[in-house]
């Protein structure tokens, strides 16, 4: 099992435990974590599963793809540590991952 901690914009914490295999977006949606809309269902084509990744985990993630970069570039809330959670696979090496959801998904 892989532990992921989602922290809402308000500071409220939502720890979840999931089996490896899916995406971080699915881990949130399947555990009713608020703040992730995932309108497109995981196709990297809506940017409504935007998260800010805790700095210490950034270099453990797969690199930002061109489509993800393009979708994120349309978000006014983008930061250095912005990622789309549908593009982060849940793998054992991410056990303990911490991400914060933005105030709004756009």
């Amino acid at each position, binding site marked *: 099992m892989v532990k992921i901690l989602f922290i809402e914009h308000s500071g409220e914490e939502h720890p979840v435990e999931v089996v490896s295999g899916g995406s971080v977006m699915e881990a949130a949606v399947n555990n009713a974590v608020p703040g992730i809309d995932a309108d*497109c*269902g995981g196709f990297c084509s809506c940017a409504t599963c935007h998260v800010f990744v805790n700095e210490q985990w950034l270099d453990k993630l797969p690199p930002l793809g061109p489509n993800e970069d393009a979708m994120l570039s349309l978000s006014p809330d983008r930061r250095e540590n912005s990622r789309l959670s549908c593009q982060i696979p849940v793998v054992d090496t991410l056990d303990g991952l911490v991400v914060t959801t933005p*105030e*709004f998904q756009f």
Partner: protein
Amino acid sequence: MSNATLQSPKQSKWSMVGKDPQTIPIEQIDLSHPGIWHANEFLPFMARLRKEDPVHYCADSAVGPYWSVTKYKDIMEVDTSPHIYSSEPTIGIVDTFEKFTLPAFISMDPPKHDEQRRVVQGVVAPANLKNLEALIRSRVCEILDGLPLNEEFDWVERVSIELTTQMLATLFDFPFEDRAKLTFWSDVATAIPGGGIVATQEERWQAIQECMAYFTKLWNARVNATPGNDLISMLAHGEATRNMPPMEYLGNVILLIVGGNDTTRNSISGGVLALNENPAEYDKLRNDQGLIPNMVSEIIRWQTPLAYMRRTAKVDTVLNNKQIRAGDKVVMWYASGNRDEDAIANADKFLIDRPNARQHLSFGFGLHRCMGNRLAEMQLRIVWEEIMKRFSFVEVVGEPERVYSSFVKGYTKLPVVLHPL
């Protein structure tokens, strides 16, 4: 938008109105003609294409040959592959004539699209919307409180148009007393000559030039002023837009007018109609107003206020086993994908408590995904919250009249009677 150059009278050899969707030879199915949309006969034609010929070539139509893409997953593939399927030169089914073409970022590919869109999207970003919510609510309340009770009137005119026009005037910081012009220009921009709004292409063009003159005046006033938080100021001061040619400015203005007007207007009307056609769903709403946000997504799916977007293949490619050639027109029928049973369970049912209601195609996907989606949702949510505080039943009392267009899917008239709580 340049979808408005189809020169064809309502009685046309191309119209499929009255034809049997099950027995018509499949190669004759042509979703582009406005007739079946105006007559509300489009659904069974789309259903047949999804089943028998999901990527469908129409060799001969009033707008020339084109592909119809009707399945959810194929639409998603086209919408998310801008390197294969270009938004240039136009997203309308009709090829543009140079004289009548208005460039706007909806019909541009990256990187120019991304640069121009970034300039204006802040105005409709959720952080800004939070500040607008109280204003929108007060305007909704004022409109609803001014409506007659127990007496027939046209919901389209008194509520849907009035509300979306007021909203647009606010976003543009447009002179409020002149706001009816915005509605007119929005209608003109997508009008088909002979379809009821304008008689000829020249008449349409004249109205667009008036629009141009008006907005040039506003630009000139704002370019030298302290930048305000409105769309015109954003365009006039934005790095990527402040030197844009006048026609491009006009194109983007019209894009923002149409994008923010027709779509929300027709979803406001469409929700009233859907609840009347599905009384059990209206009862669910009366029993639990917490369903409103979910219902809003379902209304937007159900209505699909823009029936399609067009792309043009940049290279030879294969889509769901069909060979598409570079230069071919490819039309994504969102109105069909939103009824695709393989992607959406019970797709032909209007269910206000539908699971995953947000997963619909009405906003498109990928880089061109609707910029104003959150504003639209907020407006619809507030409208329904305030309706439910006042009326036990918004009763549709006559046949709705529909727009003569295969692009703008909506209503020109919806007779209703309001019943108080």
